[in-house]
């Protein structure tokens, strides 16, 4: 019988942990370093690729993702070498998606042609806001004009370009956001990631918030209105909300993220990277050491994994549910039952369906638009124990 992961596909995530400056809202594993020995990093990535390839021989790779941090700080030639090695180590799908996250500054845009030559075929740009005042408050070091230039360059180089915006910013009104989003949609993109600003512990914003010094954040109702407006405007422009924060013209969805959400297998390489890997019929959760220095040293002896834990089937079922219900397409109840060893709790499911939070059919369970807005509540009902 086929392993469960095959329902979701196979991807590879590569984490580049460096940024030019640390943004005050960001709790990703990103660091500002004075000098980076890019060749040393290249060697480490290559060694890691080889190690994982021996564990997963013959698997067909659907997606590669250079995430960060700011991977657009990588030299195009090391990206080139990594992609070449990947192609050597694994058979790849015809439509292999290779995404690179880029920050929209002019320096980085100068490298876009190199990335395209290296084989990158999709760019995801962190534009975050379309006006300078807000960019400044978000601690971004690029201007809106610079971002637009970078975006134009990207569009000339890559067939697929997406960008990220953060909304529900300080003092942002609903009308502000609607206007800004309309402007974004006018750029004729086919994919947008639109994230509500989340205040995270351990960030500068989190710290300010705890001291009561972060003013002007939208109250819950306004944030909800913004979310709804986002769905409406994107929908009207033909970009469907295929995931909680992601919108795409049909066919332009990010294949890579879909591997996560469909609970496929993915290799995670680089500081702090997470992976899900089925080996000999057992699914493992892998986590790499998160400190860049520690990781680089560990890579020399192929000891990058801080953890590799077998995931119990019931936990796999929960993870599948948590990821899968983020998607508009929903999940297969049979697949859940197979993992969990029992079906989803019938009573809770009926209740959620009665109050209009989920829609069920014999072979599909998906959250409604209303249900997606309160997905955590839906999950609490369904994840027992």
């Amino acid at each position, binding site marked *: 019988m086929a392993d469960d992961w095959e329902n979701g596909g196979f991807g590879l995530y590569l984490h580049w942990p460096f940024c030019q400056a640390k943004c005050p809202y960001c709790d*990703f594993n990103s660091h500002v370093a004075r000098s980076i020995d890019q060749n040393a990093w290249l060697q480490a990535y290559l060694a890691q690729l080889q190690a994982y390839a021996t564990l997963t021989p013959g698997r067909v790779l659907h997606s590669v993702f250079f995430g960060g941090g700011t991977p657009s700080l990588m030299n195009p030639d090391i990206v080139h070498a990594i992609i070449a090695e990947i192609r050597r180590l694994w058979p790849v799908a015809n439509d292999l998606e290779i995404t690179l996250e880029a920050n929209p500054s002019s320096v980085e845009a100068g490298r876009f042609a190199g990335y395209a030559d290296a084989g990158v075929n999709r760019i995801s740009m962190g534009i975050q806001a379309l006006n300078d005042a807000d960019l400044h408050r978000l601690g971004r070091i690029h201007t809106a004009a610079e971002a637009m230039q970078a975006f134009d360059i990207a569009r000339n180089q890559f067939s697929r370009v997406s960008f990220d915006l953060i909304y529900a910013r300080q003092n942002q009104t609903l009308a502000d956001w609607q206007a800004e989003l309309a402007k974004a949609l006018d750029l004729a993109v086919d994919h947008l990631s639109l994230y509500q600003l*989340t205040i995270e512990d351990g960030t500068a914003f989190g710290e300010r918030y705890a001291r009561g010094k972060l003013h002007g954040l939208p109250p819950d109702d306004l*944030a*909800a209105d913004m979310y709804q407006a986002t769905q409406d405007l994107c929908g009207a422009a033909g970009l469907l909300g295929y995931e909680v*924060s992601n919108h795409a013209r049909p066919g332009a969805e990010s294949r890579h993220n879909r591997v996560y959400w469909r609970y496929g297998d993915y290799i995670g390489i680089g500081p702090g990277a997470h*992976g899900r890997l089925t080996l000999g019929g057992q699914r493992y959760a892998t986590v790499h050491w998160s400190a860049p220095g520690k990781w680089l040293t560990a890579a020399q002896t192929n000891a990058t994994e801080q953890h590799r834990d077998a995931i119990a089937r019931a936990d796999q079922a*929960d993870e599948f549910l948590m990821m899968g219900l983020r998607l508009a397409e929903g999940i297969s109840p049979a697949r859940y039952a197979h993992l969990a060893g029992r079906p989803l709790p019938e009573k809770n499911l009926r209740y959620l369906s009665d*109050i209009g939070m989920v829609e069920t059919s014999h072979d599909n369970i998906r959250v409604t638009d209303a249900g997606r807005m309160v997905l*955590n509540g839906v999950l*609490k009902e369904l994840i027992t124990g």
Partner: protein
Amino acid sequence: MTDLAHIRNFSIVAHIDHGKSTLADRLIQSTNTVAERDMKAQLLDSMDIERERGITIKANTVRIDYLADNGETYVLNLIDTPGHVDFAYEVSRSMRAVEGSLLVVDSTQGVEAQTLANVYQAIDANHEIVPVLNKIDLPAADCARVAEQIEDVIGIDASDAIHVSAKTGIGIKETLEAIVHRLPAPTGDENAPLTAMLVDSWYDSYLGVVVLVRIMNGRLKKGDQIKMMQTGARYGVDRIGVFRPSMQTVESLGPGEIGFITASIKQVRDTRVGDTITHEKKGIDTPLPGFKPAQPVVFCGLFPVDSAEFEDLRDAIEKLALNDASFSFEMETSAALGFGFRCGFLGLLHLEVIRDRIEREYDIDLITTAPSVVYHVYMKDGSMIELHNPADMPDLTYVDHLEEPRIKATIMVPDEFLGDILKLCQDRRGIQMDLTYAGARAMVVYDLPLNEVVFDFYDRLKSVTKGYASFDYQLTGYRQDTLVKMQILVNEEPVDALSTMVHRDRAEMRGRAMVEKLKDLIPRHMFKIPIQAAIGGKVIARETLAALRKDVTAKCYGGDVTRKKKLLEKQKAGKKKMRQFGKVDIPQEAFINALKMDN
């Protein structure tokens, strides 16, 4: 061993916050009872709750040795008492064990409601009273005015009141001398059969049950076989000691002395405060008069949030009941909440203190149902039922009428706030009985229904008068009125734990206040929730708690599913502090807070 002439026993009594515990500190310190390095402010307030709230809850006894100016050493047993009205029982009980009282009056505030209440109790107990004017270090102190007030309002001589600053230590020496010379020595006969008063008892996790005794006659020694006269329980005395204020063992206690004993006591109910202890053989036949038992006036259900903790809750409640004779309990079951206890308290602060102690000292999360006073339900067949729980209200077709408890409330308030107080009392269905003045302060006496007072009256009183009013009350009896049971429906389902009895004329107002409060107290859910107040099926107030609009994690961290899972688990843990009624989670603190009215 100390002869009677060299013993003085006294309680320190006052209105709340007038400085009893601080005065006790100075007396302990100036007699070197406690090493300087172990001293701290309000040393005797040792419970966490006491320190946090800055008030005394439990009376405390300390024995100090004092070398007086006449060159002789005296043994002084002082009892520091609580000032809050809910703990008045601790004061009256303590007074029975001693011969005199230091009546502390804050010289910046003057006579307050509990000052009066305490004086009357002290007079009742035949005490010699020494007035102490405290806080004279403060610029607002006005000893002459306060002394005059004591004479006018209380009617005791204040010409030789002692001027003290318990904070800085002024007047402490004079206080100690006054204790020796103005308070009487105890009387008693060492050779008579043992007569000891069981003043208090509590549970100590190391020693088990500890009993506080005052010896009236005879001598109690280690190893003695004793019996508790009311309960008939018999024990051998393991340990005898005194509080300095830590426990110090002694060989024996004689007449006039106050100390503790332990006796491997297993049964909580064997040690009843007010009981008389005597020797098993050659004991006395007639016990001391005993104490008037404390009457719980507020009742509520306590249920474990996690129903698996019922047995732990039983254990905790039994132990606390031993520490606190004024708290009563019996088992209760509820369809929605499972097994728990219906408990009786002397007031809302008392309730909150017990609840906090169970939660902290025994680590049990509790649901506290809406508190209620005791109603008398007269049935058509002539019988009467004491209703402790509105959920048990019998079918109205069998009910003839209801009576509710009334109180006599004494309120002292500066003139400028008098209008606010009269309005507050009027709003609470009060009937004015008296209004007199002492200087710029008014003393108002009101006849009020207890159920209008018990939950938030004290808080309201303090807030409308910026803290300048004081309040004391006594139960006076029961009176018939048009009372109805008000139910609260959450998401169309009645929640028994929120049912209350209200006056018909006040029902709409109360109902509206409660549903509004609950709307704030209950978190939003995935669906909208109607919250209604109803009387006999008729809805009298309604609010709708809007549905939760948004609760979803925006970002996806690469493939870090673990992180999402942790978040969800955290949210689930928060949910454990709530109880489900139908599909609605109601937080544990909602049941009491729903009854507190803001204005």
